[in-house]
């Protein structure tokens, strides 16, 4: 053992810097795992520490209709404290700027939060609301967007409110909620005066309860579910919130760790490739050791120790970098987490990340190191013998390959927590590697077969480097291609989704929707919109209703059925259905025939059901569905099933009734129009909200902006991790170039001796790296475009958008990075006079 350690240490003398460079391949992957793992531990501890503040109460009871009667009596009987909240969307008008903006209104009463603090800037805003003052607390982004200050006046419904401050932190709410629509907090006592509440309002009603110490929140929730089944209540407890949040953090941790793991595997391939070249240079040394009496095991152990040292160095550097990156992550995830996360170093996460790094590094190192066992002593006399022996089959290589596959699958299963998902990830990764490696081989083959001899020498030499012995074509295509593929896929998916949603503007489709329009407001609103130069394109009546029975079985009975053949959400929800005589442009009948008018002779009205709902409810043509339309029973049968393009911002419905059934029911309206410009959109919104304060608008531009904000946050976090993969690819590239440096120097010196100029030599390098970079970027980009197309078609069900400009820019950037890295790593080779290099190399 002493000899092995001594020899490993001494033998590494001249190559320590080179070995450390090899270890850099795994540094970024380890850093990614350590930073994400440790940050997750930070978040988990913050969740534990602030668990009660996560909800601000012991129990949330939420209902789609006002809380009243026995329910309130029951809550009061619990002996705790109750606060109330009514939440709905509305338009906030800013009179001083003549602007309107959709906000999420939270009207609250009571001393909520019971745990944690509702923090405002300036402090004391919560006290004003509790006192019932006519004041609002607004989202800081809203204040910044319109340059509003504390003390300014805004209007909600018919009432003017003074801005009392901005919201900093509200227990029980994720800041992510504010991404959808900025929040406005007001006192519940002031709500009636605004005219925004009342029948037809799409509000959510909530009681926030602090329970006496003797009562268990989960137990109370169960009791209430049994006691008030018809109220369609939903419950949230601290335990549940903690579980959900913990699960979300764990999912994010798992996903980002997998992205980091890809970088680690890539690094592992880089290490294997570097060590392969390293060991090739050690054949003579090993052969001499064998001649001097070292056993195959001893020789192998010498280099295994070096491989282990390399892994340890990489793990240490990765651990340190990971901790540094971890410090930056809270800023990266700011605005996505409901709690403040304090930095602390999670030793288990650090050791896990470093351990994974060492294991992967060691497994990948074993592949080239195994050949050391097979270097015969005879190679000291005849070097060709080593090649002959080492190229034979080796069962240990297969075993190590299987171990690597098992390690990758095991890690993926561990991170995702699901066997199928983990195996799927490992398989896809394996497939990706195989495709890239296969393409790499094809590129090398094509470079040998199809490069015309008529091309200038420097170009042919550059292409020649792709296929000649000891080329790195496959390695570089895999590493750079995979990095390009990951980053570009994320980018393209984002573009596809935003384009799909935002494309309405270009096509003249509706981009502004008004809802909550009362029966008597629809005609004046139509005139108002027309007067503003933006006539209403489509409008639809909305009638709220609930299902009472399906195929003769009551909802209560269906819900109690053991295997629950029908999704509970579909039975419990309040339906907002419409009636009309024809299909809309976003619909297509896929089964049966659409009936525009209920015949006087038919007993059951023929309704049209959206295909997803039909599937979840196991509905077929002719099935009877009975409804409670605000107290009036209505019997219907499924007359047709429709496919609906939900992604379009147009009035779409789960259930469409024929004309002649619901006309007499209490209803509101929804109207959609197309505004040609942002100014036009703002003008019509202002005009409508001024006249009809209860009406709410959804502006497509705002939706796109909101979604873009969410995508930006999430995609940035993912792309940040994916960048580790790209950077690893570049390190592997630099390593590959450096390890080929010896061979390259000899060739260059020979060419110089034969009269090649410095310019020619530089051009050969440029052509080689440019060809490699372009190939890697093109293959990565092609895979990204394919992945985007598949995701768009099978996951998002939209048309894929792969803008040529973005793809070309990505190809150009990766190619330039490759050339720059190649040039940087290979510089010096052409700068030296031949004799100087020959002396160094002998």
């Amino acid at each position: 053992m002493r000899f092995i350690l001594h020899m490993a240490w001494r033998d590494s003398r001249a190559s320590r810097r080179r070995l450390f460079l090899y270890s850099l391949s795994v540094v970024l992957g380890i850093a990614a795992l350590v930073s994400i793992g440790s940050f997750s531990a930070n978040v988990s501890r913050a969740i534990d520490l602030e668990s009660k503040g996560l909800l601000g109460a012991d129990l949330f009871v939420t209902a789609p209709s006002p809380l009243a009667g026995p329910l309130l009596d029951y809550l009061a009987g619990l002996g705790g404290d109750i606060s109330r909240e009514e939440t709905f969307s509305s338009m906030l008008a800013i009179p001083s700027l003549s602007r309107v903006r959709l906000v999420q209104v939270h009207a609250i009463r009571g001393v909520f939060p019971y745990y944690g603090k509702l923090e405002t800037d300036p402090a004391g805003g919560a006290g004003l609301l509790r006192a019932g003052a006519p004041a609002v607390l607004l989202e800081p982004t809203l204040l910044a967007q319109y340059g509003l200050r504390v003390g300014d006046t805004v209007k909600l419904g018919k009432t003017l409110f003074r801005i009392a401050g901005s919201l900093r932190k509200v227990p029980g709410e994720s800041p992510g909620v504010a991404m959808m629509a900025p929040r406005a907090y007001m006192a519940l006592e002031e709500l009636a005066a605004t005219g925004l509440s009342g029948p037809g309002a799409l509000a959510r009603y909530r009681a926030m309860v602090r329970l006496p110490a003797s009562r268990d929140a989960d137990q109370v929730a169960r009791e209430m579910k049994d006691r008030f089944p018809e109220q369609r209540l939903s419950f949230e407890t601290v335990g549940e919130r903690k579980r959900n949040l913990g699960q979300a953090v764990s999912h994010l941790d798992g996903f980002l760790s997998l992205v980091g793991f890809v970088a680690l595997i890539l690094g592992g391939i880089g290490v294997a490739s570097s060590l392969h070249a390293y060991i090739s240079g050690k054949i003579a040394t090993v052969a001499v050791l064998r001649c001097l009496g070292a056993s195959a095991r001893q020789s192998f152990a010498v280099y295994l120790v070096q491989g282990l040292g390399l892994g340890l160095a990489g793990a240490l550097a990765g651990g340190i970098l990971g901790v540094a990156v971890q410090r930056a992550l809270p800023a990266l995830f700011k605005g996505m987490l409901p709690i403040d996360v304090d930095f602390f170093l999670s030793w288990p996460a650090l050791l896990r990340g470093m351990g994974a790094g060492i294991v992967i590094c060691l497994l990948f190192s074993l592949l080239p190191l195994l050949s050391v066992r097979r270097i015969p002593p005879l190679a000291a006399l005849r070097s060709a013998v080593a090649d002959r022996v080492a190229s034979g089959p080796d069962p240990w290589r297969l075993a190590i390959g299987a171990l690597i596959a098992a390690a990758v699958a095991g890690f993926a299963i561990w991170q995702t927590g699901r066997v199928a998902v983990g195996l799927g990830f490992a398989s896809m990764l394996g497939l990706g590697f195989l495709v890239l490696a296969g393409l790499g081989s094809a590129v090398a083959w094509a470079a040998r077969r199809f490069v015309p001899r008529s091309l200038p020498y420097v170009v042919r030499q550059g292409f020649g480097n792709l296929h000649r012995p000891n080329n790195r074509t496959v390695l570089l295509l895999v590493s750079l291609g995979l990095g390009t593929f990951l980053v570009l896929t994320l980018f393209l998916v984002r573009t596809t989704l935003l384009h799909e949603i935002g494309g309405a503007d270009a096509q003249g489709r509706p981009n502004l929707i008004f809802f909550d329009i009362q029966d008597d407001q629809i005609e004046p609103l139509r005139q108002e919109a027309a007067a503003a130069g933006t006539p209403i394109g489509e409008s639809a009546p909305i009638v709220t209703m609930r299902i009472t029975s399906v195929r003769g079985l009551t909802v209560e009975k269906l819900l109690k059925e053991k295997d629950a053949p029908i999704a509970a959400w579909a039975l419990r929800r309040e339906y907002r259905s419409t009636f009309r005589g024809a299909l809309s442009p976003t619909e297509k009948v896929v089964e049966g025939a659409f009936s525009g008018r209920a015949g006087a002779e038919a007993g059951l009205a023929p309704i049209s059901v959206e295909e997803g709902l039909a599937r979840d409810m196991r509905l077929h043509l002719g099935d009877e569905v009975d409804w409670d339309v605000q107290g009036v029973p209505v019997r219907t049968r499924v007359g047709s099933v429709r496919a609906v393009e939900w992604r379009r911002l147009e009035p779409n419905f789960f259930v469409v009734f024929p004309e002649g059934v619901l006309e007499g029911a209490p209803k509101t309206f929804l109207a959609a129009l197309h505004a040609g410009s942002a100014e036009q959109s703002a003008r019509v919104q202002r005009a409508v909200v001024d006249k009809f304060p209860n009406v709410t608008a959804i502006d497509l531009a705002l939706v796109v902006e909101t979604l873009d904000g969410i995508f930006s946050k999430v995609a940035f976090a993912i792309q940040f991790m994916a960048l580790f993969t790209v950077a690893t690819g570049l390190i592997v590239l630099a390593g590959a170039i450096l390890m080929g440096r010896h061979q390259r120097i000899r060739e260059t010196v020979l060419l110089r001796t034969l009269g090649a100029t410095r310019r020619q030599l530089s051009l050969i390098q440029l052509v080689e790296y440019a060809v490699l970079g372009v190939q890697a970027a093109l293959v990565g980009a092609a895979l990204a475009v394919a992945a985007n197309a598949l995701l768009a078609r099978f996951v998002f069900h939209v048309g894929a958008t792969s803008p040529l400009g973005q793809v070309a820019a990505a190809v150009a950037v990766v190619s330039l990075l490759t050339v720059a890295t190649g040039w940087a790593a290979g510089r010096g080779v052409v700068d030296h006079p031949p004799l100087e290099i020959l002396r160094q190399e002998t």
Partner: protein
Amino acid sequence: MPSQAMLRVSRLTKTYPTAAGPLTVLHEASFEIGPGESIAIVGPSGSGKTTLLGLCAGLDRASGGSVELAGETLDRLDEDGRARVRNASVGFVFQNFQLIPTLTALENVLVPLELRGERGCEPEGRALLERVGLGARFDHYPVQLSGGEQQRVALARAFINTPKILFCDEPTGNLDGDTADAMVELVFGLNRERGTTLVLVTHNFELAGRCQRILRLKGGTVVSDLRTPPAS
């Protein structure tokens, strides 16, 4: 012929498979070398000299026949067994020196002893380096030494384990005339001092003539085994 052979080679054959069929590079070579004896293996390029040396030293396995080295039948040993025999009984000097580039001169010399797990053997290494005239070069790396100096380090390494038999493959092939002469003196001087058996592969007939026997190979076959006249 000595009664107890240091190296006994019987009907030794080596065949390589090639695309054109098996290629026999050594055909039924047989001879014996006694303790302290010196023998030169000569012959034209491709006659099988290096193959014979590799097989005799246990660096490769024969296709047929047997090699008995220092009382051990090499064919019966696995690779690690043969490595133990080499470490215990064999010294090597190669044409291209084969020093380990990352070790100093002294460390190169000590490798065979360190492989055995011996400690405190530096004085022996230093003494041997001084004996070959490199007392001032202990801590120099191979790249800092001339060809002649490298070959002398190799010679010191070959004698550090007090081998019973020394195999030399063209030991002066990469050296100029004067350096080669000095090297030859050292090889034979140390050989005499330590009573080592010497097996030398060379193209150089003058050098071969300094050995007690000359074994001539042609086309993989031993064509003569002659005793040289004693030096005057």
